[in-house]
């Protein structure tokens, strides 16, 4: 009698278990069939493909110098090509206008006005020159940056004397502290979104 009961129990357990296994197998087959389609491509949204610095002679709007950096896969991790159009003239004052675009989107996305300026308190443009006698000021109407600084979007540049050298622009994201008392600007902490140096910039 006791043995029969035990057997019955075991049979029940076995049956239950077989059922459970079947159910689980069914679940398995459903989930494994669910995503047979090809995955969708990801076009990086955050990338900057094109950086353009346009220096326009304040006295003559037809006289300008364009520094351009282009990376099809994005400046962050793609190979970039720098081109310089035109030369500076000693003694001339220029206004710099910046352009940051993502041309992998159609139409091209304006990263400067769309992303960076709305979050100006977390970004900072720092510039530097080497071998070039230039001075630079952040304009009064520049966009306010972190900690009472000027972001560095609207700037004025003076080419002092003739020479050839390098000009660097960096965009720093979430810097710990920034300092624009030296107008070119410096920052500590944070991470660089880009760090581009144009070599062979000429002042005639």
């Amino acid at each position, binding site marked *: 009698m006791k043995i029969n009961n035990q057997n019955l129990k075991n049979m029940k357990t076995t049956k239950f278990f077989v059922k459970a296994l079947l159910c689980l197998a069914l679940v398995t087959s459903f989930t494994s069939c669910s995503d047979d389609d090809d995955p969708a491509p990801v076009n990086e949204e955050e990338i900057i493909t094109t950086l353009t610095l346009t220096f326009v002679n304040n006295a003559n709007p037809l006289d300008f110098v364009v520094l351009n950096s282009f990376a099809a896969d994005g400046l962050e991790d793609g190979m970039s090509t720098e081109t310089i159009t035109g030369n500076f003239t000693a003694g001339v004052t220029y206004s710099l206008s910046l352009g940051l675009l993502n041309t992998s989107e159609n139409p091209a996305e304006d990263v400067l006005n769309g992303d960076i300026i709305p979050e100006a308190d977390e970004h900072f443009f720092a510039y530097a020159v080497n071998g070039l006698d230039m001075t630079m000021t952040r304009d009064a109407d520049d966009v306010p940056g972190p900690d009472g600084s000027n972001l560095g979007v609207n700037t004025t540049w003076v080419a002092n004397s003739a020479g050839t050298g390098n000009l660097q622009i960096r965009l720093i994201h979430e810097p710990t502290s920034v300092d624009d008392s030296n107008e070119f600007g410096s920052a500590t902490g*944070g991470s660089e979104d880009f760090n581009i140096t144009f070599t062979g910039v000429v002042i005639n």
Partner: protein
Amino acid sequence: MKLSALFVTLFCFQIGFTQKCDSVFLGEIRDFHDNTPIVGATVYIQNLNKYVASDNNGKFKIENLCKGQIILVISHIGCETKTVSYMIEGDLFKSISLEHHIEELNEVALRAKENKTTQTAQETIIKTDVLERYSSLSLGDALKEVPGVSSINTGNTIVKPLINGLHSSRILIMNNGVRQQDQEWGIEHAPNIDINNAGQISVIKGSGALAYGGDAVGGVVVLKPGRIINKDTLYGRTILGGHTNGRGYNITSTLTKNYSSGWFAQLQASYKRNGDFRAPDYNLTNTGLDSKGFSTRLGKRNFESGFEFYYSYLNNEIGILGASHIGSVFDIERAINSGQPLLIEDFSYDINAPKQDITHHLAKANYYRRFQGFGKVSVQYDYQYNQRLEFDVRIGDRRNIPAIDLTLQTHSLLADASLDSNLERKYNFGIMGRYQNNFADPDTGVRRLIPDYDKYDFGIYGTTEWQLNDDLILDAGVRYDFSRIDAKKFYLISRWEERGYDEDFSDIIIEELPTQLLTNPVFNYHNFSASAGAKLDLDNYNQILFNYSLASRPPNPSELFSDGLHHSAARFELGDLRFGKEVSNRVSLTYSYNSTRFRLLSEVFYNRINNFIYLRPFDFVLTGRGPFPIWEYQQTDAQLYGIDLTVTYDITDAWQFQNKSSLTKGYDKETDLPLIDIPPFSTINQIRYTNSKWNNFSASLKSEWVFEQNEFPDFNFEVEDELSGEMVLLDISTPPPAYHLLHFYSEATFDLSEKTKLNVSLSVNNIFDTSYRNYLNRLRFFADELGRNISLQIQLNY
């Protein structure tokens, strides 16, 4: 006596007049689990209606048996009564094992007995009482109790076990019988396991445990839940802890209900929280942790058969040191030169980007049944769901969108037969089938690091264990695994061509987009693994173990498919579709000496790994953030060897001294360079005082001395600062100097009532608040390790 003789006579009479009744049956009764003899068991010979009892060696003798069947009913206090029958055709010896519940109860209540998974492998067990000390920490921290096991860290909460210098895909983690599948290939992907779930952990160096898998080039970590006892009882455990460093707190509770019928149910939940940790000189901003875990078991467990349902959930939100977010190699250079993090803020519990948010579900069902004279057959189905979200520092409305969003689902079916009716010749066979799907969500807006893939695995194995005599055990095993990966991966056309895939893999392109190619790589791998070993007891004190194991590991998804910028490392990482499997030949020799006062365990190993896959710098790429080094996964032949020592000396009954030392060497045979991330020599000395009269009081002082790693591959590189034209050196290779730390631990246990025990422990880590950096912490460029931490933990067993 006369009466029984009469019975015997009568019995023989019944069977036949011609039979001689002079056979002798010798029996031996042993504990089913640990093979210890069971003394004083009652043996009722049913057909003779006669009783005998087992002697001090668990043996008993029945004489004057006639040919034919005898039925024995064996009972012992605390054991399930067992009925066995044998055919008597002459003298016979049989070993009979009993399921010994009282012993088990003792194991749970007092001190877990060593219950090793393997015979000849280098296996170390971490018992419940030690695990309880790590209640607030991670699996990787607890495993460092084992000499030869260190950890590779990303910060202080992402801790991955490193066994004899190997980690990640080379270590197999078994969580309650389920092979953990949680994107373990990544160096910053810690095992998603709540240590409070485990009742015991076995660490097996090398791949000797073939039943779990054949690809454990580094080792196997086996987590077992607490034992279930067949007794009507309800018990629980609650641990509460508080910690000064990081202002952390943790709570875990387990409640278990058992029935004598074998039914059991268990509920367990844990919560851990801490804010920013602190190095001796500054806060480690954004290093908080929020961890929630829950698990439940339900089933019935008897000697003959049983089943179990198990479910566990774990969610970890882990902050990653804010200062470690870098954009360019110049950022990393500034971080190295500044000597302290570039982002230090006031203490906070907030967890901001960069951070990880990982959810892991595990469900399993198993059933086993024992067949008399055959062994045990078990089947298991398990399912795991792992979601990994990694949040990077992003701008705009993408701020709250993870940069990595991977969902990994795994289904496994296992069947195993263990033939242990003859305890001197045990055999074990099994098959395994597994299906895995990885889905990388494109909504991240970041190109997938790991592609969508389906992976199919099939394994079959057989192992055996021969007890040749009382002193010698041999074991051996073979295993075959088939593994197929079927991925859908996008490549940038520029990368595709640069890798030369346009020549070798043009047939796998399924779609061409303007800048990207969709490809369908499908790879099959056939893996053979084997092991053999011997365990020899020289005498009561000296024991020698020898083991050889062959393991093969197919390349993991990151080794095959990586192609992109790894932000936290400031480097490009490139995998290779052409990789074949990695094959390891490992020999190990263990010598142990055990006397009452002095114990020595010495483990040596040599591991030769052909086609060892590892990352090394290869080239540069000039990007808009400056030059970046390109690191390529490459295959080479490597060798690792080392020695792990544990010496324990009981100076008096109260005072104990222990030393654990470990030396590991690893070399790339092709380039003759040392391997990267090999743990430096370390030695831990501990002195402990115990007094059982003072409520089991114990106090210990531990000195941890980690040497500087002098053997490292020099992967330093120079980049040109384009503005000034100067070359800048990036020292990313030189290991940090040696360090020495002192830790204190003390505890006492109070009996509150017959069934309630209160354990209070106080510990101080890094007593002197020493500043140091750890070679095996990937964030060592950015910040020091943790400063002093004082912890108070209260544990209630009821």
